[in-house]
């Protein structure tokens, strides 16, 4: 198992109390697995991604463990995490466009970055990696401002994977791109795994149809907890959690017209995570809710590789 997360809890400190953004999350990602992590804003998907790299000042590791390739990651220990960052776990940030130093040429910046980590890399290897994502080696002699958004995104992707990390986290990497660049970036991610540059991958996104294109499994989060995890095909065609079902049926597709089939959204709003209600957090919006939902359902395996947190999932 590449990644094992057990009962992870990460809260945000605010003036009005603690926001339980990640409240008891247990799952694993296998070697070679590309897992899509989907959810709406405030579901905790970005908090989960960030927790595996670096907790910022407002975030507090309340409980739970994260194991990567058998080693426990010291989430709360900022300097202790340095042994893992970039080498074992690497992140492609959401705003890659602004992740590059504007005063350095790309080549120089990459050199300085590797120096600071005490690593060396052959220039030929760097050029080969750029070629893999469809960039010419000339970009090394250019400033970030000379590259387009999609090119910068790909440069950051190359940098993030230079040390062949075991786990790569891609946080909303396609959200700011046009549909044609989205496709290019997504297939590049797939290429990283297929060429063995990274072992497994977590692709965080709000766009289920995009992640469905490249992911082996998809995990859906709701209000700080896991709702469902299943092989991508199963999750899209036969979801079992009522939230996943409603979410997928609310997605307009090319070919679906308003006159032919009127789609419906999910009424209501997600609960506040400041003082979340007990039991299942989807209860208030759920058409199937019954008495037992006052008790939190376990994230149980209902079929091989298919986990659902719902009492009514059979």
């Amino acid at each position, binding site marked *: 198992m590449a990644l094992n997360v057990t009962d992870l809890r990460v809260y945000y400190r605010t003036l009005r109390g603690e926001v339980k953004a990640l409240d008891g999350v247990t799952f694993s990602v296998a070697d070679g697995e590309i897992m899509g992590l989907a959810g709406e804003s405030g579901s905790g998907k970005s908090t989960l991604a960030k927790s595996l790299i670096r907790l910022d000042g407002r975030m507090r590791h309340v409980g739970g463990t994260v194991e990567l390739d058998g080693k426990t990651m010291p989430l709360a220990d900022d300097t202790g995490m340095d042994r893992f960052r970039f080498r074992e776990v690497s992140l492609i940030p959401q705003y890659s466009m602004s992740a590059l130093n504007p005063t350095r040429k790309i080549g120089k910046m990459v050199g300085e970055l590797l120096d600071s980590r005490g690593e060396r890399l052959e220039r030929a290897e760097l050029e080969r990696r750029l070629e893999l994502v469809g960039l010419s080696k000339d970009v090394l002699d250019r400033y970030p401002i000379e590259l387009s958004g999609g090119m910068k995104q790909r440069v950051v992707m190359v940098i993030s994977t230079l040390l062949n990390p075991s786990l790569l986290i891609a946080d909303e990497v396609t959200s700011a791109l046009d549909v044609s660049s989205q496709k290019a970036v997504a297939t590049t991610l797939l290429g990283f795994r297929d060429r063995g540059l990274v072992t497994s991958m977590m692709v965080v996104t709000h766009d289920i149809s995009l992640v469905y294109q490249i992911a082996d499994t998809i995990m859906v989060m709701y209000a700080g907890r896991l709702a469902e995890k299943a092989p991508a095909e199963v999750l899209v065609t036969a979801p079992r959690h009522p939230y996943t079902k409603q979410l997928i049926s609310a997605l307009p597709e*090319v070919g679906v017209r308003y006159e032919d089939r009127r789609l419906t959204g999910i009424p209501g709003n997600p609960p506040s995570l400041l003082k979340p209600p007990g039991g299942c957090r989807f209860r208030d919006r759920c058409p199937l809710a019954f008495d037992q939902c006052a008790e939190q359902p376990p994230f149980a395996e209902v079929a091989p590789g298919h986990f659902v947190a719902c009492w009514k999932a059979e």
Partner: protein
Amino acid sequence: MLKLDSVSKVYRVGAFGGRELKAVSDVSFEVGEGEVVSLIGESGSGKSTLGRMILRLASISGGRITLDGRDITSIKDRKEYYRQVQGVFQDPFSCYNPVFRADRVFAMIKEQYFPQAGADEWRKRVEGALESVRLDPGNVLGKYPHQLSGGQLQRMLIARAVLLDIRLLVADEIISMLDASTRIDVLNLLADLRARGLGILFVTHDLSLGNYVSDRTVVLRHGKIVEMGRTDLVFGNPAHPYTRSLLASVPRLHAKWTDAVPEDVPCAFHEAPQESRTRPGLAEVEGDHFVACAGCGASKIKENA
């Protein structure tokens, strides 16, 4: 109702504005009453610039935009124009002043446009407008922006536009910032407003959203129309290679991306008979379905010959 007639927009760029950038060139289309037209394009296609020109937020460099035959730049009283045409934009959170209650947007409409309306009558109208966008007035009135969700704020902005009894709504990427579970409600709302006779220009980069709600579709690339016509024709039988490649890149559920084989299809514009070129630069390949030249170079060959 609204008619664009070879509209162009030129921006001055570079140091001292020495260079020119043609953001929109010779775009012509119409939006009728009770019709949803979606304007689809990638970043830099000029779709937002067009929306801003229609809303008179940007000047028009060439061509004419008319509303019921009247040039919109000749309407001196801007208020009179904005009584009929309103816009809603991408980010609902930045449209409200966080210091004031969210319903201040309605009070400002009253102050500016209906100063003589009585308080009671006005309250009824606001409640009516909120109900028409499926918001419970008791739930949203008196709240501050941070207490409301993005979908609620966006619907309040649409209600604000509806209060004016407008005839045309320019909706510029109004869905992009919303979550999947609420965006479909806003889309359905647009469809309901259309049924009341409102014309809607729906600007988006998301083809599946445009396809869901619109009657007609205009596909823009680098400021030019590449294809336009009835939505089912444009999406069902795309005639321009750019439209086809866009459609192929859209991530779908239940179908994985296939590697598009570069196809050798003849240019639909030059294949079409001369008399079908009813609009400048566009050929009508079938009823209400226009396509531009695919960049096949046929025009050059003719010039040389």
